[in-house]
Protein backbone atom coordinates (compact mmCIF):
# COMPACT_ATOMS: atom_id res chain seq x y z
CA UNK A 1 0.00 0.00 0.00
CA UNK A 2 2.63 2.41 1.05
CA UNK A 3 4.46 1.90 -2.21
CA UNK A 4 1.54 2.66 -4.46
CA UNK A 5 0.67 5.99 -2.91
CA UNK A 6 3.73 8.17 -3.10
CA UNK A 7 3.89 10.51 -0.17
CA UNK A 8 6.34 13.24 0.54
CA UNK A 9 9.03 10.96 1.93
CA UNK A 10 8.22 7.94 -0.22
CA UNK A 11 11.48 8.36 -2.02
CA UNK A 12 13.45 7.59 1.12
CA UNK A 13 11.21 4.76 2.22
CA UNK A 14 10.42 3.14 -1.07
CA UNK A 15 13.23 0.55 -1.23
CA UNK A 16 12.57 -0.81 2.22
CA UNK A 17 9.38 -2.81 1.67
CA UNK A 18 10.98 -4.66 -1.22
CA UNK A 19 13.86 -5.71 1.02
CA UNK A 20 11.46 -6.98 3.61
CA UNK A 21 9.62 -9.15 1.12
CA UNK A 22 12.34 -10.81 -0.93
CA UNK A 23 10.18 -13.88 -1.39
CA UNK A 24 7.63 -12.04 -3.39
CA UNK A 25 9.40 -12.61 -6.70
CA UNK A 26 6.55 -11.70 -8.97
CA UNK A 27 6.29 -8.37 -7.33
CA UNK A 28 10.00 -7.77 -7.78
CA UNK A 29 9.80 -8.72 -11.43
CA UNK A 30 6.91 -6.33 -11.91
CA UNK A 31 8.85 -3.63 -10.17
CA UNK A 32 11.94 -4.01 -12.29
CA UNK A 33 9.82 -4.00 -15.42
CA UNK A 34 8.20 -0.84 -14.22
CA UNK A 35 11.61 0.65 -13.59
CA UNK A 36 12.80 -0.22 -17.05
CA UNK A 37 9.64 1.18 -18.58
CA UNK A 38 10.04 4.34 -16.51
CA UNK A 39 13.62 4.70 -17.71
CA UNK A 40 12.78 4.12 -21.35
CA UNK A 41 9.59 6.13 -21.56
CA UNK A 42 10.31 9.10 -19.30
CA UNK A 43 12.53 11.05 -21.67
CA UNK A 44 9.96 10.77 -24.42
CA UNK A 45 7.19 11.77 -22.03
CA UNK A 46 9.21 14.85 -21.04
CA UNK A 47 9.85 16.04 -24.56
CA UNK A 48 6.43 15.04 -25.86
CA UNK A 49 4.61 18.27 -24.89
CA UNK A 50 6.91 20.33 -27.07
CA UNK A 51 6.42 18.14 -30.12
CA UNK A 52 2.68 17.71 -29.56
CA UNK A 53 2.06 21.43 -29.23
CA UNK A 54 4.41 22.34 -32.03
CA UNK A 55 2.85 19.66 -34.20
CA UNK A 56 -0.69 20.81 -33.52
CA UNK A 57 -0.19 24.59 -33.65
CA UNK A 58 2.96 24.93 -35.74
CA UNK A 59 3.72 22.15 -38.17
CA UNK A 60 0.19 21.07 -39.03
CA UNK A 61 -0.98 24.62 -39.81
CA UNK A 62 2.23 25.22 -41.76
CA UNK A 63 1.45 22.30 -44.08
CA UNK A 64 -2.26 23.06 -44.12
CA UNK A 65 -1.41 26.57 -45.33
CA UNK A 66 -0.34 24.98 -48.60
CA UNK A 67 -3.72 23.32 -48.96
CA UNK A 68 -5.64 26.49 -48.16
CA UNK A 69 -3.54 28.39 -50.67
CA UNK A 70 -5.18 26.28 -53.38
CA UNK A 71 -8.69 27.18 -52.26
CA UNK A 72 -11.04 30.08 -52.04
CA UNK A 73 -11.94 30.74 -48.41
CA UNK A 74 -13.44 33.93 -47.10
CA UNK A 75 -13.36 35.37 -43.64
CA UNK A 76 -17.14 35.35 -43.48
CA UNK A 77 -17.50 31.65 -44.29
CA UNK A 78 -14.57 29.78 -42.84
CA UNK A 79 -16.24 26.41 -43.33
CA UNK A 80 -16.66 26.50 -47.08
CA UNK A 81 -13.52 25.96 -49.10
CA UNK A 82 -13.69 25.98 -52.87
CA UNK A 83 -10.88 24.45 -54.94
CA UNK A 84 -9.28 27.00 -57.26
CA UNK A 85 -5.87 25.46 -57.93
CA UNK A 86 -3.04 27.93 -58.61
CA UNK A 87 -5.33 30.93 -58.89
CA UNK A 88 -4.29 32.44 -55.59
CA UNK A 89 -0.59 32.17 -56.41
CA UNK A 90 -1.32 33.57 -59.83
CA UNK A 91 -3.12 36.47 -58.25
CA UNK A 92 -0.42 37.49 -55.83
CA UNK A 93 2.49 36.88 -58.20
CA UNK A 94 0.89 39.22 -60.73
CA UNK A 95 0.11 41.82 -58.12
CA UNK A 96 2.66 44.64 -58.24
CA UNK A 97 1.82 45.37 -54.60
CA UNK A 98 3.15 41.92 -53.67
CA UNK A 99 6.49 42.67 -55.28
CA UNK A 100 6.56 46.09 -53.67
CA UNK A 101 6.11 44.44 -50.29
CA UNK A 102 8.81 41.87 -51.07
CA UNK A 103 11.29 44.60 -51.90
CA UNK A 104 10.13 46.72 -48.94
CA UNK A 105 10.64 43.82 -46.57
CA UNK A 106 14.06 43.20 -48.03
CA UNK A 107 15.13 46.87 -47.96
CA UNK A 108 13.83 47.52 -44.45
CA UNK A 109 15.52 44.29 -43.38
CA UNK A 110 18.88 45.45 -44.68
CA UNK A 111 18.75 49.02 -43.39
CA UNK A 112 17.62 47.84 -39.98
CA UNK A 113 19.80 44.76 -39.54
CA UNK A 114 23.17 46.00 -40.77
CA UNK A 115 23.44 49.19 -38.67
CA UNK A 116 21.83 47.42 -35.74
CA UNK A 117 24.40 44.65 -35.59
CA UNK A 118 27.34 46.98 -36.24
CA UNK A 119 26.17 49.27 -33.45
CA UNK A 120 25.60 46.29 -31.19
CA UNK A 121 29.15 45.15 -31.85
CA UNK A 122 30.57 48.55 -30.94
CA UNK A 123 28.33 48.79 -27.91
CA UNK A 124 29.36 45.35 -26.72
CA UNK A 125 32.99 46.40 -27.08
CA UNK A 126 32.32 49.45 -24.91
CA UNK A 127 30.47 47.40 -22.32
CA UNK A 128 33.36 44.96 -22.25
CA UNK A 129 35.61 47.64 -20.76
CA UNK A 130 36.00 47.63 -17.03
CA UNK A 131 33.29 50.11 -16.11
CA UNK A 132 31.78 51.56 -13.02
CA UNK A 133 28.16 50.44 -12.59
CA UNK A 134 28.43 48.08 -15.54
CA UNK A 135 25.14 46.37 -14.65
CA UNK A 136 23.42 49.74 -14.70
CA UNK A 137 24.65 50.41 -18.22
CA UNK A 138 23.67 46.97 -19.41
CA UNK A 139 20.17 47.35 -18.00
CA UNK A 140 19.70 50.82 -19.51
CA UNK A 141 20.79 49.56 -22.91
CA UNK A 142 18.29 46.70 -22.64
CA UNK A 143 15.26 48.77 -21.54
CA UNK A 144 13.83 49.16 -25.07
CA UNK A 145 13.53 45.36 -25.10
CA UNK A 146 10.90 45.71 -22.36
CA UNK A 147 8.77 47.86 -24.65
CA UNK A 148 6.21 46.20 -26.89
CA UNK A 149 6.14 46.64 -30.64
CA UNK A 150 2.85 48.46 -30.26
CA UNK A 151 4.06 50.99 -27.69
CA UNK A 152 7.36 51.54 -29.48
CA UNK A 153 5.70 52.01 -32.86
CA UNK A 154 3.17 54.45 -31.43
CA UNK A 155 5.77 56.60 -29.68
CA UNK A 156 7.93 56.73 -32.76
CA UNK A 157 4.87 57.54 -34.83
CA UNK A 158 4.68 60.71 -32.72
CA UNK A 159 8.39 61.38 -33.05
CA UNK A 160 8.23 61.00 -36.84
CA UNK A 161 5.09 63.07 -37.36
CA UNK A 162 5.28 65.48 -40.26
CA UNK A 163 3.86 68.43 -38.33
CA UNK A 164 4.63 68.82 -34.68
CA UNK A 165 6.88 65.77 -34.55
CA UNK A 166 9.79 65.76 -32.15
CA UNK A 167 12.29 64.87 -34.86
CA UNK A 168 11.22 67.58 -37.28
CA UNK A 169 11.35 70.10 -34.45
CA UNK A 170 14.91 69.02 -33.65
CA UNK A 171 15.88 69.18 -37.31
CA UNK A 172 14.31 72.62 -37.45
CA UNK A 173 16.69 73.79 -34.75
CA UNK A 174 19.63 72.85 -36.95
CA UNK A 175 17.99 74.57 -39.91
CA UNK A 176 16.48 71.66 -41.86
CA UNK A 177 13.05 71.81 -43.44
CA UNK A 178 10.43 69.48 -41.95
CA UNK A 179 10.34 66.04 -43.56
CA UNK A 180 7.16 64.08 -44.21
CA UNK A 181 8.66 60.88 -42.90
CA UNK A 182 5.81 58.43 -43.38
CA UNK A 183 5.07 59.67 -46.89
CA UNK A 184 8.48 59.31 -48.43
CA UNK A 185 9.66 56.01 -49.84
CA UNK A 186 13.03 56.04 -48.17
CA UNK A 187 12.14 58.11 -45.15
CA UNK A 188 9.30 55.79 -44.15
CA UNK A 189 11.56 52.75 -44.39
CA UNK A 190 14.15 54.62 -42.40
CA UNK A 191 11.58 55.45 -39.73
CA UNK A 192 10.56 51.80 -39.40
CA UNK A 193 14.19 50.74 -39.24
CA UNK A 194 14.80 53.21 -36.44
CA UNK A 195 12.05 51.54 -34.39
CA UNK A 196 13.59 48.12 -35.01
CA UNK A 197 17.10 49.34 -34.27
CA UNK A 198 15.95 51.06 -31.09
CA UNK A 199 14.28 47.93 -29.74
CA UNK A 200 16.90 45.34 -30.60
CA UNK A 201 20.38 46.90 -30.54
CA UNK A 202 20.81 46.50 -26.79
CA UNK A 203 19.66 42.90 -26.91
CA UNK A 204 22.17 42.02 -29.59
CA UNK A 205 24.88 43.96 -27.79
CA UNK A 206 24.40 41.77 -24.73
CA UNK A 207 24.64 38.63 -26.85
CA UNK A 208 27.91 39.91 -28.34
CA UNK A 209 29.16 40.91 -24.91
CA UNK A 210 28.60 37.39 -23.59
CA UNK A 211 30.53 35.98 -26.52
CA UNK A 212 33.34 38.53 -26.06
CA UNK A 213 33.73 37.60 -22.43
CA UNK A 214 34.12 33.97 -23.42
CA UNK A 215 37.15 34.75 -25.61
CA UNK A 216 40.22 33.34 -23.83
CA UNK A 217 42.49 36.04 -22.53
CA UNK A 218 45.59 34.22 -23.78
CA UNK A 219 44.68 35.17 -27.31
CA UNK A 220 44.88 38.86 -26.46
CA UNK A 221 48.10 38.37 -24.55
CA UNK A 222 49.64 36.53 -27.46
CA UNK A 223 48.45 39.22 -29.84
CA UNK A 224 49.81 42.03 -27.72
CA UNK A 225 53.14 40.24 -27.36
CA UNK A 226 53.26 40.10 -31.13
CA UNK A 227 52.79 43.86 -31.09
CA UNK A 228 49.20 44.02 -32.29
CA UNK A 229 47.46 47.32 -31.65
CA UNK A 230 44.07 47.38 -29.95
CA UNK A 231 42.30 47.89 -33.24
CA UNK A 232 44.26 44.96 -34.70
CA UNK A 233 43.35 42.85 -31.70
CA UNK A 234 39.70 43.73 -32.16
CA UNK A 235 39.84 42.81 -35.82
CA UNK A 236 42.08 39.77 -35.64
CA UNK A 237 41.05 38.26 -32.31
CA UNK A 238 37.64 39.51 -31.23
CA UNK A 239 35.79 39.40 -34.54
CA UNK A 240 36.98 35.91 -35.59
CA UNK A 241 36.14 34.52 -32.15
CA UNK A 242 32.68 36.05 -32.44
CA UNK A 243 31.98 34.69 -35.89
CA UNK A 244 29.49 31.96 -34.80
CA UNK A 245 27.65 34.45 -32.60
CA UNK A 246 27.57 37.04 -35.37
CA UNK A 247 26.15 34.45 -37.74
CA UNK A 248 23.56 33.53 -35.13
CA UNK A 249 22.44 37.15 -34.70
CA UNK A 250 22.34 37.66 -38.47
CA UNK A 251 20.04 34.66 -38.83
CA UNK A 252 17.81 35.75 -35.95
CA UNK A 253 17.59 39.36 -37.13
CA UNK A 254 16.91 38.32 -40.70
CA UNK A 255 14.04 36.11 -39.60
CA UNK A 256 12.84 38.94 -37.37
CA UNK A 257 12.88 41.46 -40.19
CA UNK A 258 10.88 39.06 -42.38
CA UNK A 259 8.13 39.35 -39.78
CA UNK A 260 7.87 43.12 -39.37
CA UNK A 261 4.22 43.86 -38.74
CA UNK A 262 3.44 46.11 -35.80
CA UNK A 263 5.92 48.82 -36.77
CA UNK A 264 4.49 49.49 -40.25
CA UNK A 265 0.90 48.86 -39.15
CA UNK A 266 1.04 51.53 -36.48
CA UNK A 267 3.43 54.03 -38.09
CA UNK A 268 0.50 56.11 -39.32
CA UNK A 269 -2.31 54.11 -37.78
CA UNK A 270 -5.83 54.08 -39.18
CA UNK A 271 -6.60 52.68 -42.62
CA UNK A 272 -3.16 53.56 -43.96
CA UNK A 273 -1.58 50.98 -41.68
CA UNK A 274 -3.31 48.06 -43.37
CA UNK A 275 -1.94 49.00 -46.78
CA UNK A 276 1.47 50.21 -45.65
CA UNK A 277 1.02 53.85 -46.59
CA UNK A 278 -0.83 55.58 -49.41
CA UNK A 279 1.60 54.24 -52.01
CA UNK A 280 2.39 51.03 -50.11
CA UNK A 281 5.77 52.61 -49.54
CA UNK A 282 6.32 50.78 -46.27
CA UNK A 283 4.10 47.74 -46.77
CA UNK A 284 5.87 44.59 -45.61
CA UNK A 285 4.98 41.00 -46.46
CA UNK A 286 3.24 40.53 -43.12
CA UNK A 287 1.13 43.61 -43.76
CA UNK A 288 0.32 42.35 -47.23
CA UNK A 289 -0.77 39.01 -45.74
CA UNK A 290 -2.83 40.77 -43.08
CA UNK A 291 -4.45 43.06 -45.61
CA UNK A 292 -5.50 40.19 -47.86
CA UNK A 293 -6.69 37.91 -45.08
CA UNK A 294 -8.00 40.08 -42.31
CA UNK A 295 -8.74 43.40 -43.97
CA UNK A 296 -10.14 42.21 -47.30
CA UNK A 297 -11.20 38.82 -45.95
CA UNK A 298 -9.63 36.55 -48.59
CA UNK A 299 -7.75 33.83 -46.78
CA UNK A 300 -6.68 31.91 -49.89
CA UNK A 301 -4.30 34.56 -51.21
CA UNK A 302 -3.15 35.22 -47.65
CA UNK A 303 -2.11 31.58 -47.40
CA UNK A 304 -0.34 31.87 -50.74
CA UNK A 305 1.61 34.83 -49.33
CA UNK A 306 2.64 32.64 -46.40
CA UNK A 307 4.12 30.13 -48.82
CA UNK A 308 5.86 32.86 -50.73
CA UNK A 309 7.40 33.91 -47.43
CA UNK A 310 8.55 30.36 -46.82
CA UNK A 311 10.17 30.31 -50.25
CA UNK A 312 11.94 33.60 -49.52
CA UNK A 313 13.10 32.30 -46.16
CA UNK A 314 14.61 29.23 -47.79
CA UNK A 315 16.29 31.47 -50.36
CA UNK A 316 17.80 33.59 -47.60
CA UNK A 317 18.89 30.47 -45.74
CA UNK A 318 20.59 29.17 -48.88
CA UNK A 319 22.28 32.53 -49.42
CA UNK A 320 23.42 32.54 -45.81
CA UNK A 321 24.84 29.09 -46.18
CA UNK A 322 26.70 29.95 -49.37
CA UNK A 323 28.07 33.17 -47.91
CA UNK A 324 29.05 31.30 -44.76
CA UNK A 325 30.96 28.73 -46.78
CA UNK A 326 32.58 31.43 -48.85
CA UNK A 327 33.67 33.37 -45.79
CA UNK A 328 35.04 30.24 -44.17
CA UNK A 329 37.06 29.17 -47.18
CA UNK A 330 38.37 32.64 -47.94
CA UNK A 331 39.38 33.24 -44.33
CA UNK A 332 41.71 30.26 -44.24
Amino acid at each position, binding site marked *: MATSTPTRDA*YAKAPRPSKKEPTDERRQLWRSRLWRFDDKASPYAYIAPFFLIFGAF*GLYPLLYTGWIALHRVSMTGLDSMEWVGWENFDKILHDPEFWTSVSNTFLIGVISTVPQLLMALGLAHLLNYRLRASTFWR*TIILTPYATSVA*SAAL*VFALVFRAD*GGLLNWTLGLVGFDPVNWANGHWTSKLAISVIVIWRWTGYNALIYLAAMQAVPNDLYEAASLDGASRWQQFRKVTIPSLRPTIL*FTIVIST*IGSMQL*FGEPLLLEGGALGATGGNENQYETLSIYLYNYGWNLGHLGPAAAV*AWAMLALLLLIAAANWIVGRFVRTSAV
Partner: protein
Amino acid sequence: MTMTSPTPTAPAKLAPTPKSGGPSRPSRFRMGAGQQLKGGPFAYAALAVVGFGSLLPLYWTLVAASRTQDEVLASTPPFFPGGKLIENIQTAWEQANLGKAIVNSIIVSSSITLATLFFCTLAGYAFAKMRFRGRGWLMTAVIATLTIPPQLSVVPLFMMMSGLGWGGQLESVIFPTLVSAFGVFFMRQYLIEALPYELIEAAKVDGANNFRIVRSVVLPVARPAMMVLGMLTFVQAWNDFFWPYLALNQQNPTLQVALGQLSASYTPDQSIVMAGALISTLPLLVVFVLFGKKIVGGIMSGAVKG
Protein backbone atom coordinates in the same frame (compact mmCIF):
# COMPACT_ATOMS: atom_id res chain seq x y z
CA MET B 1 52.38 51.66 -31.48
CA THR B 2 54.44 49.00 -29.80
CA MET B 3 55.12 51.43 -26.98
CA THR B 4 51.50 51.97 -26.11
CA SER B 5 49.83 48.67 -26.79
CA PRO B 6 51.32 46.51 -24.00
CA THR B 7 50.42 49.00 -21.31
CA PRO B 8 46.65 48.85 -21.50
CA THR B 9 46.66 45.06 -21.54
CA ALA B 10 48.81 44.85 -18.43
CA PRO B 11 45.96 45.04 -15.90
CA ALA B 12 44.23 42.22 -17.69
CA LYS B 13 47.31 40.05 -17.19
CA LEU B 14 47.50 40.83 -13.51
CA ALA B 15 43.88 40.09 -12.89
CA PRO B 16 42.85 37.04 -14.86
CA THR B 17 39.25 37.03 -13.62
CA PRO B 18 38.25 40.57 -12.79
CA LYS B 19 34.70 40.63 -11.54
CA SER B 20 33.88 44.21 -12.21
CA GLY B 21 30.32 44.12 -11.08
CA GLY B 22 29.40 41.58 -13.73
CA PRO B 23 26.29 39.47 -13.20
CA SER B 24 26.62 37.62 -9.93
CA ARG B 25 26.13 34.23 -11.46
CA PRO B 26 27.35 30.97 -10.01
CA SER B 27 30.76 29.83 -11.15
CA ARG B 28 29.44 27.84 -14.09
CA PHE B 29 28.45 31.10 -15.70
CA ARG B 30 31.83 32.68 -15.14
CA MET B 31 33.28 33.72 -18.41
CA GLY B 32 36.82 34.31 -19.50
CA ALA B 33 38.24 37.66 -18.64
CA GLY B 34 38.08 38.91 -22.19
CA GLN B 35 39.76 42.17 -22.86
CA GLN B 36 39.23 43.88 -19.55
CA LEU B 37 40.54 47.32 -20.30
CA LYS B 38 39.55 50.17 -18.11
CA GLY B 39 36.86 52.33 -19.63
CA GLY B 40 37.92 55.91 -20.26
CA PRO B 41 35.79 59.04 -20.42
CA PHE B 42 35.03 58.30 -24.07
CA ALA B 43 33.41 54.99 -23.16
CA TYR B 44 31.23 56.62 -20.53
CA ALA B 45 30.26 59.44 -22.85
CA ALA B 46 29.31 57.04 -25.62
CA LEU B 47 27.31 54.87 -23.25
CA ALA B 48 25.56 57.92 -21.87
CA VAL B 49 24.52 58.97 -25.38
CA VAL B 50 23.20 55.48 -26.18
CA GLY B 51 21.49 55.26 -22.81
CA PHE B 52 19.86 58.64 -23.40
CA GLY B 53 18.60 57.40 -26.76
CA SER B 54 17.27 54.25 -25.14
CA LEU B 55 15.30 56.09 -22.51
CA LEU B 56 14.16 59.16 -24.46
CA PRO B 57 11.19 57.49 -26.23
CA LEU B 58 9.98 56.12 -22.90
CA TYR B 59 10.22 59.56 -21.32
CA TRP B 60 8.46 61.05 -24.32
CA THR B 61 5.63 58.53 -23.81
CA LEU B 62 5.19 59.84 -20.30
CA VAL B 63 5.29 63.48 -21.41
CA ALA B 64 2.74 62.89 -24.19
CA ALA B 65 0.50 60.82 -21.94
CA SER B 66 0.27 63.60 -19.41
CA ARG B 67 -0.55 66.42 -21.83
CA THR B 68 -3.31 67.29 -24.24
CA GLN B 69 -2.95 66.39 -27.88
CA ASP B 70 -2.65 70.04 -28.85
CA GLU B 71 0.27 70.52 -26.50
CA VAL B 72 1.99 67.39 -27.78
CA LEU B 73 1.65 68.40 -31.41
CA ALA B 74 2.47 72.07 -30.85
CA SER B 75 5.23 73.53 -32.98
CA THR B 76 7.43 73.53 -29.89
CA PRO B 77 6.80 70.22 -28.17
CA PRO B 78 6.68 70.16 -24.37
CA PHE B 79 9.67 68.79 -22.48
CA PHE B 80 8.14 68.02 -19.13
CA PRO B 81 5.13 66.00 -18.05
CA GLY B 82 1.90 67.92 -17.55
CA GLY B 83 -1.05 67.32 -15.27
CA LYS B 84 -3.42 65.44 -17.56
CA LEU B 85 -2.14 61.92 -16.88
CA ILE B 86 -5.06 60.63 -14.78
CA GLU B 87 -7.62 62.17 -17.09
CA ASN B 88 -6.02 60.65 -20.20
CA ILE B 89 -5.76 57.25 -18.58
CA GLN B 90 -9.45 57.40 -17.69
CA THR B 91 -10.38 58.27 -21.26
CA ALA B 92 -8.17 55.50 -22.63
CA TRP B 93 -9.70 53.13 -20.12
CA GLU B 94 -13.18 53.84 -21.46
CA GLN B 95 -12.32 53.98 -25.15
CA ALA B 96 -10.13 50.92 -25.39
CA ASN B 97 -11.57 48.46 -22.91
CA LEU B 98 -8.31 48.69 -20.98
CA GLY B 99 -9.62 47.13 -17.78
CA LYS B 100 -10.51 43.92 -19.54
CA ALA B 101 -7.31 44.13 -21.58
CA ILE B 102 -5.16 44.27 -18.44
CA VAL B 103 -6.89 41.25 -16.93
CA ASN B 104 -6.57 39.37 -20.22
CA SER B 105 -2.89 40.24 -20.56
CA ILE B 106 -2.23 38.99 -17.05
CA ILE B 107 -4.12 35.73 -17.67
CA VAL B 108 -2.41 35.12 -21.02
CA SER B 109 1.11 35.98 -19.89
CA SER B 110 1.04 34.10 -16.63
CA SER B 111 -0.49 30.93 -18.01
CA ILE B 112 1.97 30.90 -20.91
CA THR B 113 4.83 31.51 -18.48
CA LEU B 114 3.82 28.75 -16.07
CA ALA B 115 3.26 26.19 -18.82
CA THR B 116 6.49 27.15 -20.57
CA LEU B 117 8.46 26.76 -17.36
CA PHE B 118 6.99 23.36 -16.62
CA PHE B 119 7.29 21.85 -20.10
CA CYS B 120 10.63 23.44 -20.96
CA THR B 121 12.26 22.31 -17.73
CA LEU B 122 11.09 18.74 -18.31
CA ALA B 123 12.20 18.73 -21.93
CA GLY B 124 15.43 20.56 -21.15
CA TYR B 125 16.26 18.01 -18.47
CA ALA B 126 15.54 15.11 -20.83
CA PHE B 127 17.77 16.60 -23.54
CA ALA B 128 20.50 17.50 -21.09
CA LYS B 129 20.79 14.44 -18.90
CA MET B 130 18.81 11.49 -20.20
CA ARG B 131 19.97 9.04 -22.81
CA PHE B 132 17.42 8.02 -25.39
CA ARG B 133 17.25 7.07 -29.02
CA GLY B 134 16.98 10.05 -31.35
CA ARG B 135 18.11 12.62 -28.82
CA GLY B 136 20.48 14.38 -31.19
CA TRP B 137 18.21 14.90 -34.12
CA LEU B 138 15.19 15.65 -31.95
CA MET B 139 17.16 18.49 -30.35
CA THR B 140 18.12 19.69 -33.81
CA ALA B 141 14.44 19.62 -34.71
CA VAL B 142 13.62 21.75 -31.67
CA ILE B 143 16.21 24.35 -32.63
CA ALA B 144 15.08 24.29 -36.26
CA THR B 145 11.57 25.31 -35.22
CA LEU B 146 13.06 28.59 -33.97
CA THR B 147 13.52 29.67 -37.56
CA ILE B 148 9.85 29.31 -38.55
CA PRO B 149 8.05 32.65 -38.40
CA PRO B 150 4.47 32.57 -37.08
CA GLN B 151 3.29 34.26 -40.28
CA LEU B 152 3.57 30.96 -42.12
CA SER B 153 0.81 29.28 -40.14
CA VAL B 154 -1.59 32.01 -39.04
CA VAL B 155 -4.21 31.47 -41.72
CA PRO B 156 -5.00 27.82 -40.89
CA LEU B 157 -4.43 28.55 -37.22
CA PHE B 158 -7.18 31.13 -37.37
CA MET B 159 -9.51 28.63 -39.05
CA MET B 160 -8.59 25.90 -36.56
CA MET B 161 -9.28 28.15 -33.60
CA SER B 162 -12.65 29.12 -34.98
CA GLY B 163 -13.38 25.42 -35.57
CA LEU B 164 -12.46 24.62 -31.97
CA GLY B 165 -14.81 27.32 -30.77
CA TRP B 166 -11.90 29.44 -29.59
CA GLY B 167 -12.36 32.24 -32.10
CA GLY B 168 -11.67 35.52 -30.32
CA GLN B 169 -11.03 33.65 -27.07
CA LEU B 170 -7.88 33.79 -24.99
CA GLU B 171 -7.34 30.07 -25.58
CA SER B 172 -6.43 30.80 -29.17
CA VAL B 173 -3.54 32.97 -27.97
CA ILE B 174 -2.46 30.78 -25.06
CA PHE B 175 -2.35 27.30 -26.57
CA PRO B 176 0.03 27.81 -29.49
CA THR B 177 2.69 29.25 -27.16
CA LEU B 178 2.55 26.83 -24.24
CA VAL B 179 6.12 25.69 -24.90
CA SER B 180 8.98 27.43 -26.64
CA ALA B 181 11.94 26.01 -28.48
CA PHE B 182 14.08 28.72 -26.97
CA GLY B 183 12.98 27.65 -23.50
CA VAL B 184 13.86 24.01 -24.12
CA PHE B 185 17.25 25.04 -25.44
CA PHE B 186 17.83 27.47 -22.57
CA MET B 187 17.01 24.93 -19.86
CA ARG B 188 19.09 22.28 -21.59
CA GLN B 189 22.14 24.55 -21.75
CA TYR B 190 21.77 25.37 -18.09
CA LEU B 191 21.16 21.84 -16.83
CA ILE B 192 24.01 20.29 -18.80
CA GLU B 193 26.46 22.06 -16.53
CA ALA B 194 24.42 22.80 -13.42
CA LEU B 195 23.17 19.30 -12.75
CA PRO B 196 25.85 16.70 -11.97
CA TYR B 197 25.14 13.10 -12.97
CA GLU B 198 26.13 12.04 -9.45
CA LEU B 199 23.07 13.76 -8.05
CA ILE B 200 20.76 11.85 -10.37
CA GLU B 201 22.54 8.57 -9.71
CA ALA B 202 22.31 9.10 -5.97
CA ALA B 203 18.59 9.68 -6.21
CA LYS B 204 18.23 6.54 -8.32
CA VAL B 205 20.15 4.48 -5.79
CA ASP B 206 17.79 5.80 -3.17
CA GLY B 207 14.98 4.32 -5.19
CA ALA B 208 13.48 7.44 -6.72
CA ASN B 209 11.59 7.06 -9.96
CA ASN B 210 12.15 9.50 -12.79
CA PHE B 211 9.42 11.94 -11.97
CA ARG B 212 10.50 12.03 -8.35
CA ILE B 213 14.02 12.84 -9.51
CA VAL B 214 12.56 15.74 -11.46
CA ARG B 215 10.70 17.00 -8.42
CA SER B 216 13.34 16.64 -5.76
CA VAL B 217 16.59 16.99 -7.70
CA VAL B 218 16.08 18.74 -11.04
CA LEU B 219 13.63 21.45 -10.03
CA PRO B 220 15.68 22.82 -7.13
CA VAL B 221 18.81 22.90 -9.28
CA ALA B 222 16.97 24.49 -12.19
CA ARG B 223 15.32 27.22 -10.13
CA PRO B 224 17.69 30.10 -11.00
CA ALA B 225 17.41 29.39 -14.72
CA MET B 226 13.65 29.01 -14.39
CA MET B 227 13.46 32.46 -12.83
CA VAL B 228 15.25 33.96 -15.79
CA LEU B 229 13.30 31.97 -18.38
CA GLY B 230 10.10 32.91 -16.58
CA MET B 231 10.86 36.61 -16.85
CA LEU B 232 11.93 36.40 -20.48
CA THR B 233 8.80 34.41 -21.36
CA PHE B 234 6.56 36.82 -19.49
CA VAL B 235 8.05 39.83 -21.27
CA GLN B 236 7.60 38.13 -24.62
CA ALA B 237 4.03 36.98 -23.94
CA TRP B 238 3.07 40.40 -22.60
CA ASN B 239 4.46 42.16 -25.65
CA ASP B 240 3.31 39.72 -28.31
CA PHE B 241 1.40 41.54 -31.02
CA PHE B 242 1.02 39.81 -34.39
CA TRP B 243 -1.01 36.70 -33.59
CA PRO B 244 -3.08 38.22 -30.76
CA TYR B 245 -3.98 41.11 -33.07
CA LEU B 246 -5.30 38.65 -35.63
CA ALA B 247 -6.92 36.25 -33.18
CA LEU B 248 -8.60 38.58 -30.69
CA ASN B 249 -11.07 41.41 -31.11
CA GLN B 250 -12.11 44.66 -29.53
CA GLN B 251 -14.45 42.96 -27.07
CA ASN B 252 -11.79 40.65 -25.72
CA PRO B 253 -8.33 42.17 -26.31
CA THR B 254 -4.96 41.92 -24.64
CA LEU B 255 -3.27 45.23 -23.85
CA GLN B 256 -1.25 45.27 -27.06
CA VAL B 257 -4.33 44.48 -29.14
CA ALA B 258 -6.31 47.20 -27.39
CA LEU B 259 -3.47 49.59 -28.06
CA GLY B 260 -3.35 48.68 -31.73
CA GLN B 261 -7.08 49.15 -32.05
CA LEU B 262 -6.98 52.44 -30.19
CA SER B 263 -4.55 53.85 -32.72
CA ALA B 264 -6.47 52.34 -35.64
CA SER B 265 -9.62 54.26 -34.74
CA TYR B 266 -10.59 57.10 -37.06
CA THR B 267 -9.21 60.10 -35.25
CA PRO B 268 -6.96 58.80 -32.51
CA ASP B 269 -6.11 61.35 -29.85
CA GLN B 270 -2.37 61.01 -29.55
CA SER B 271 -2.15 61.70 -25.84
CA ILE B 272 -4.85 59.11 -25.13
CA VAL B 273 -2.94 56.60 -27.23
CA MET B 274 0.21 57.42 -25.30
CA ALA B 275 -1.64 56.95 -22.02
CA GLY B 276 -2.54 53.46 -23.21
CA ALA B 277 1.05 52.81 -24.27
CA LEU B 278 2.26 53.93 -20.87
CA ILE B 279 -0.10 51.55 -19.10
CA SER B 280 1.01 48.63 -21.24
CA THR B 281 4.71 49.40 -20.73
CA LEU B 282 4.74 50.37 -17.08
CA PRO B 283 4.41 46.89 -15.50
CA LEU B 284 7.37 45.61 -17.49
CA LEU B 285 9.47 48.66 -16.69
CA VAL B 286 8.87 47.95 -13.01
CA VAL B 287 9.94 44.34 -13.54
CA PHE B 288 13.01 45.64 -15.33
CA VAL B 289 13.97 47.98 -12.55
CA LEU B 290 13.57 45.19 -9.99
CA PHE B 291 15.11 42.30 -11.90
CA GLY B 292 17.13 44.04 -14.62
CA LYS B 293 20.34 42.40 -13.51
CA LYS B 294 18.82 38.91 -13.68
CA ILE B 295 17.29 39.52 -17.09
CA VAL B 296 20.56 40.89 -18.44
CA GLY B 297 22.41 37.88 -17.06
CA GLY B 298 19.79 35.57 -18.53
CA ILE B 299 20.05 36.98 -22.03
CA MET B 300 23.82 36.78 -21.85
CA SER B 301 23.88 33.23 -20.50
CA GLY B 302 21.29 32.03 -22.98
CA ALA B 303 23.34 33.40 -25.81
CA VAL B 304 26.66 31.76 -25.15
CA LYS B 305 27.40 28.62 -27.10
CA GLY B 306 24.53 29.49 -29.43
